[in-house]
């Protein structure tokens, strides 16, 4: 079977294709001795179909006269057919070969890669290819065949990757089905309903409807091929109910439901879709049942895209969903809970201890105030080490920082421990020298004793290193990120649903388009399979007069490129009621200002000229009531983090000069 894909690749003749298809059909109908594989066959025949359609599309582009408007319409129609067939393959292809898949269903903008499995490499540019881009290109002026083929050719070349032996082998065993299904379900909660990769908002629902029909067909064939390891009936029933939920919406909203994507004419916009019910009633329970199948049957994913996922997690709205940072640092392998408890205690002590600063007057607490959700709500940007100048960026909250793959707003660091060391040794922050940290901390007998008992947990080290010190701090900080918000409880059914919150969430995912960058459930820039941290250019001004863009170049400092100038990592909106002021430079003091900024279309919408802005400059046209509902929803994401009490005293040092330290520092 696999070779069929490849053979077809170079052929443009319908007769050859038709005969080959007949041959496949015949070979299938006569292969009575071979065990039936309806699931694998379905995969292969959809792949063949896609290849045929893509070749037809290419043929149309090569032969046709693209100055003729009818030819353009025909090309568009063919692209839509290809997109349609692709939606049926999305279930598998996105999981089996995520990188190759992006050549067919590419990012709408140039993407600088920073997925978790690549984050140790230098970022590289991923040009957009594929069908959606080609479709958008057709609406531009002075299009050329070469440019159009440049978008389509890489997609065609990529198809054969999906018929590789390793993928076929995975289809021949049941396990990977459940991982494909998991990714599919997570995407239902995040990207399929928000228009993340849909060129027109009106197509979201018809496309979603088609995806559900295609997946239903996959489920049926899977259960025929693997009757012994099937999805429970309860799952299939709920899935059916979910499909009806979308179908009803499509029938209500569209005048004539043409099966072809891109033709359906809407009566209404997609904003009336109830995203809250969709996730709470259908997607999340289905996800839980699929996770149960994975853990009950000890299934193991052999895909690098699943690094972050936790097979024991049972709700999308539980913080154990994915793993982004090693919060234990050098103590990674410590399992003993009493030792961990001691380390956290020590970490907290160091968090408040100005011994980590050069002048013994500043600590972590100086900027990350425990009484203010571990940020400083009183200033746009905090004081530098000199006590006079201001830093250029707003102090971020530490809560939930562990759910980022790249740390700091420009993604400078890949681990929390590197970031901690950076702050301690940054001359503008705590101003220490790396080689002085250990000696200074160890001058306190209490610290020395504690760290020496922990040394046995790090067999690769003969003595205490700066990594030991920052690791206990990151362990303490991690304890702040384990709390849930009322919104999580509503999603998990442990708290009654509030109508205003529900309306706000539906706006967030629909009309206000927030959900296309702030993904469920952390509402940060980490989307399924939760392996990346995304950056956006919003055009945040230097002050509220909107005369100029903030001079901070953001990601550009780390990875200089046209696309990264003024780009910042998408932050979480959790706890934002408590973490003002907002944006990288703290320019907005209220949530209303932030929403007004987005409503206007970011910097461009406010009259600035930012060529590479990734936020649409069109107004969202939100009403006063809608803005209020959005804020109510955002407030429901405030986590119930308990008050932190400072330590009673700090360990005494043998160096008497160090014994005047104030708990938390002096400024």
């Amino acid at each position, binding site marked *: 079977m696999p070779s069929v894909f490849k053979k077809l690749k170079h052929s443009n003749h319908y007769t050859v294709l038709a005969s080959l298809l007949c041959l496949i059909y015949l070979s299938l109908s006569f292969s009575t001795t071979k065990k039936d594989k309806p699931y694998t066959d379905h995969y292969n025949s959809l792949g063949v179909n896609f290849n045929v359609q893509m070749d037809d599309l290419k043929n149309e582009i090569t032969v046709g006269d693209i100055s003729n408007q009818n030819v353009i319409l025909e090309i568009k129609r063919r692209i839509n057919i290809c997109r349609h067939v692709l939606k049926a393959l999305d279930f598998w292809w996105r999981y089996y070969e995520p990188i190759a898949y992006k050549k067919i269903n590419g990012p709408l903008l140039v993407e600088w890669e920073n997925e978790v499995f*690549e984050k140790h490499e230098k970022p590289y540019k991923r040009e957009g290819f594929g069908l959606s881009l080609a479709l958008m290109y057709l609406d531009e002026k002075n299009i050329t065949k070469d440019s159009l083929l440049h978008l389509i050719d890489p997609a065609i070349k990529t198809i054969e990757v999906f018929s590789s032996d390793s993928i076929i082998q995975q289809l021949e065993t049941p396990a990977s089905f459940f991982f494909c299904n998991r990714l599919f379900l997570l995407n239902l909660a995040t990207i399929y309903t928000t228009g993340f990769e849909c060129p027109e908002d009106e197509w979201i629902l018809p496309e979603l409807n088609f995806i559900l029909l295609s997946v239903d067909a996959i489920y049926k064939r899977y259960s025929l091929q693997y009757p012994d390891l099937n999805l429970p009936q309860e799952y299939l029933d709920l899935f059916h109910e979910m499909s009806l939920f979308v179908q009803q919406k499509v029938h209500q909203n569209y005048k004539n439901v043409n099966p072809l994507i891109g033709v359906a004419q809407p009566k209404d916009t997609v904003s009336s879709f109830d995203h809250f019910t969709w996730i709470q009633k259908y997607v999340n329970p289905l996800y839980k049942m699929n996770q149960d199948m994975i853990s009950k049957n000890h299934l193991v*994913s052999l*895909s690098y895209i699943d*690094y972050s996922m936790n097979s024991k997690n049972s709700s999308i709205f539980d913080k154990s969903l994915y*793993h982004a940072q090693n919060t234990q640092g050098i103590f*990674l392998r410590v399992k003993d809970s009493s030792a961990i408890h001691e380390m956290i205690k020590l970490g907290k002590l160091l968090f408040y201890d100005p011994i980590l600063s050069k002048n013994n007057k500043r600590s972590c607490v100086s900027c990350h105030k425990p009484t203010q959700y571990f940020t400083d709500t009183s200033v746009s940007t905090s004081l530098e080490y000199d006590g006079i100048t201001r830093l250029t960026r707003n102090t971020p909250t530490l809560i939930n920082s562990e759910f980022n793959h790249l740390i700091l707003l420009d993604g400078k660091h890949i681990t929390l421990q590197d970031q901690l060391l950076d702050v301690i040794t940054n001359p503008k922050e705590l101003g220490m020298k790396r080689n002085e940290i250990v000696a200074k901390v160890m001058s306190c007998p209490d610290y020395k004793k504690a760290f020496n008992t922990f040394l046995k947990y790090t067999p690769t080290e003969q003595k205490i290193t700066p990594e030991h010190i920052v690791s206990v701090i990151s362990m303490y900080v991690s304890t702040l990120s384990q709390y849930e918000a009322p919104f999580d409880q509503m999603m998990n059914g442990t708290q009654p649903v509030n109508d205003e919150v529900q309306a706000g969430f539906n706006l967030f995912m629909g009309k206000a388009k927030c959900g296309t960058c702030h993904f469920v459930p952390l509402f940060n820039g980490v989307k399924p399979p939760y392996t990346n941290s995304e950056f956006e250019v919003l055009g945040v001004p230097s002050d509220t007069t909107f005369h100029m863009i903030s001079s901070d170049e953001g990601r550009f400092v780390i990875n200089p490129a046209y696309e990264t100038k003024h780009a910042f990592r998408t932050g979480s909106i959790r706890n934002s009621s408590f973490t003002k002021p907002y944006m990288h430079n703290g320019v907005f003091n209220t949530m209303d200002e932030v929403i007004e900024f987005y409503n206007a279309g970011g910097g461009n919408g406010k009259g600035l000229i930012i060529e590479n802005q990734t936020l649409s400059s069109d107004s969202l046209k939100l009403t006063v009531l809608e803005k209020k509902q959005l804020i109510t929803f955002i407030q429901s994401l405030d986590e119930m983090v308990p008050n932190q009490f400072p330590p009673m005293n700090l360990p005494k040092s043998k160096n008497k000069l160090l014994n005047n330290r104030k708990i938390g520092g002096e400024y």
Partner: protein
Amino acid sequence: MNIKLYIPINKYLICLLLLSIFIACVSNKNYIIPKGLSTSQKKDFVLQFNQGRTLYDLNCANCHNKIINNKVVEPDFTVEQFEIYKIRIKNEPHVTSLGPQQITPTEINKILFFFINKKKNKLNPATTFKHID
């Protein structure tokens, strides 16, 4: 009195024994220091190598060490076999024991450093080691 005397001697003996084992281990070093390194670079090299070996012992030795002629033999792995995000999913035991919550990429790189610099086995690896690929 006698007992009191014995305790320090015992301690001393144990220390001596440990020291001799340590010296034996160090002298029987399993690495080749690249030429042209300064003294501090050499020190750093040995530190890195030993860290890599410890991590190998902790995470890999259980499955990958072989006993041949009553001797423990460590396999020779190549750089190509060591792509961080592929090694984690090479097979099912790797998925469960080499996840990001069990070992960091930095640590995997240290193990790679150990493999690059360790003395290769004299035996033909093709005939003595058959690892799951």
